[in-house]
């Protein structure tokens, strides 16, 4: 069976710097695939290329059978490839519920309808409430996003990516800056996604990655140096030399 996401020979250069260097990557339907690597390995660049925020210089991205290499970000999202951001990006002038409702609206029908209040769209509003409950913010629906705690904002960031029921969600460091308890909750949320969509997880918390992931790819210097089951990757000497050794010392 073909993978849900197939990346082949992907390249991104910034001047002389090769940020993404001939990356090959597969994400299977229904798996949590973690992407780890030291700072500056090119993780964020790669996610931006997959999400459509950055154009690739070379290579191909095939998602769900479609060659999406040149697609705009919104087209990818509508096809079911949605990302979250490392730095929380919410719509500050709206409530938590309105933020999720926007995420639902973005992939359900035309946004050019300019007469009927969106508040009257029952299915859309119900879906937004369901997502809020799923991410543990059911009681905070009407709170302005500026009034949410950092942990709640991170949960909402991920919730917005999930609202459209994507086939594949790219999570860019969902646990960044979270306390222990919040991290545990986020970990449970990511684990629960397996039932509905595939996940490409970029995460610094290596322990969480090895608990969550079905497979792990290691990115160093813009190249994927290995891909495999968590236990195999953990014991891989090249990975230990390039990355994990350094992490263990911390």
């Amino acid at each position: 069976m073909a993978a849900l996401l197939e990346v082949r020979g992907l390249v991104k250069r910034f001047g002389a710097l090769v940020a993404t260097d001939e990356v090959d990557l597969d994400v299977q339907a229904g798996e949590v695939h973690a992407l780890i690597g030291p700072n500056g390995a090119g993780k964020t660049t790669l996610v931006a290329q997959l999400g459509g925020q950055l154009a690739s210089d070379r290579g191909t991205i095939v998602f769900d059978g479609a060659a999406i290499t040149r697609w705009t970000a919104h087209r990818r999202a509508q096809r079911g490839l949605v990302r979250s951001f490392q730095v929380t990006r919410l719509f500050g002038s709206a409530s938590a519920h309105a933020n999720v409702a926007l995420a639902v609206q973005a992939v359900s029908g035309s946004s050019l309808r300019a007469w009927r209040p969106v508040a009257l769209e029952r299915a859309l509003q119900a879906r937004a409430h369901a997502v809020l409950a799923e991410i543990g913010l059911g009681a905070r629906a009407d709170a302005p996003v500026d009034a949410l705690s950092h942990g709640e904002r991170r949960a909402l960031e991920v919730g917005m990516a999930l609202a459209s029921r994507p086939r594949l969600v790219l999570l860019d460091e969902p646990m960044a800056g979270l306390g222990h308890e919040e991290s545990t909750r986020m970990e449970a949320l990511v684990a629960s996604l397996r039932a509905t969509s595939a996940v490409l997880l970029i995460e610094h918390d290596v322990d969480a990655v090895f608990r969550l992931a079905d497979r792990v790819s290691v990115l160093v210097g813009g190249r994927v140096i290995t891909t495999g089951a968590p236990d195999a990757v953990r014991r891989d000497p090249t990975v230990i030399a390039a990355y994990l050794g350094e992490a263990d010392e911390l």
Partner: protein
Amino acid sequence: MRRAAVIVLAVLAAALPWLLQALGLDFYLSLANRIVVAAIAATSLNLVLGYGGLVSFGHAAFVGLGAYATGILVSEGVTSGWAHLGATLLVAGVAALLIGAISLRTRGVYFIMITLAFAQMLFYLANSIKGYGGDEGLNIRARSVLGAGAFALDLKNPVVCYEAALVVLALVLAALARFVPSRFGRAVLAIRDDDLRAEALGFPTYRLKLVLFVAAGMLGGVAGALGVNQQGYVSPNVLHWTQSGTFMVMVILGGVASVWGGVIGAVVLLLLQEVLGAWTEYWAFWTGWVLLAAVLFARRGLAGLFAAR
């Protein structure tokens, strides 16, 4: 309460020509008409500037194109108001589509500059069309006529012209109030807040902004068409960048991204101009202080002051 206030205001505005007549102040009807036309133009700019967060510095171009489209048709002997409306929407819409398609690929200061540049190009174009007045402008003897026979509404009659503009303004405001909580309105506000995020969620941000820009351009054109009917005259000055600046001042003064912002801004600025203008030739200097005070003390414009209550 709010609804009642709006109804009272609408009735008063509709009855204004007769009120002025009763008070022997008919002279002010043309001022009232200018205010209504400016309110339509400012509200159309608020659509892109306020709701879209797109600082278009060339909005006078669309107002001017509407004025010229209607003015030229009238001077060629076409008096059908519906033809004028159609031509205005077509010309302003196509221009907004072309200008928007290019400008919306840029951001920030570049967007401001490129919209300004397009508007100035059209300003010089209007100066150079000798057949229709060139830099001296175009006087029209006739006006738009809506309908035919006994029920024809000739905008040459100042009362008809004023009421027609008022109806257009009411329709624009009603549509705007529907737009804000609609799918389109929510998406536009999201794009204003965070363009990249909106695109990542699946909003076709470029297309949505372009539709908004074209709608605002067409509405601006309608304001221009009403303006030429009121003035009986159109000159390249309606396309000048200072005119775009005036509409921006109205929006900022009245209230950015507020349904009534354009109306309040147009009323206050033009009344100030009238009152101060009678008193000193340096009215612009004093108007500047008012704008400064509004920006410093009422961040959301005068409409924000009302909403805070």
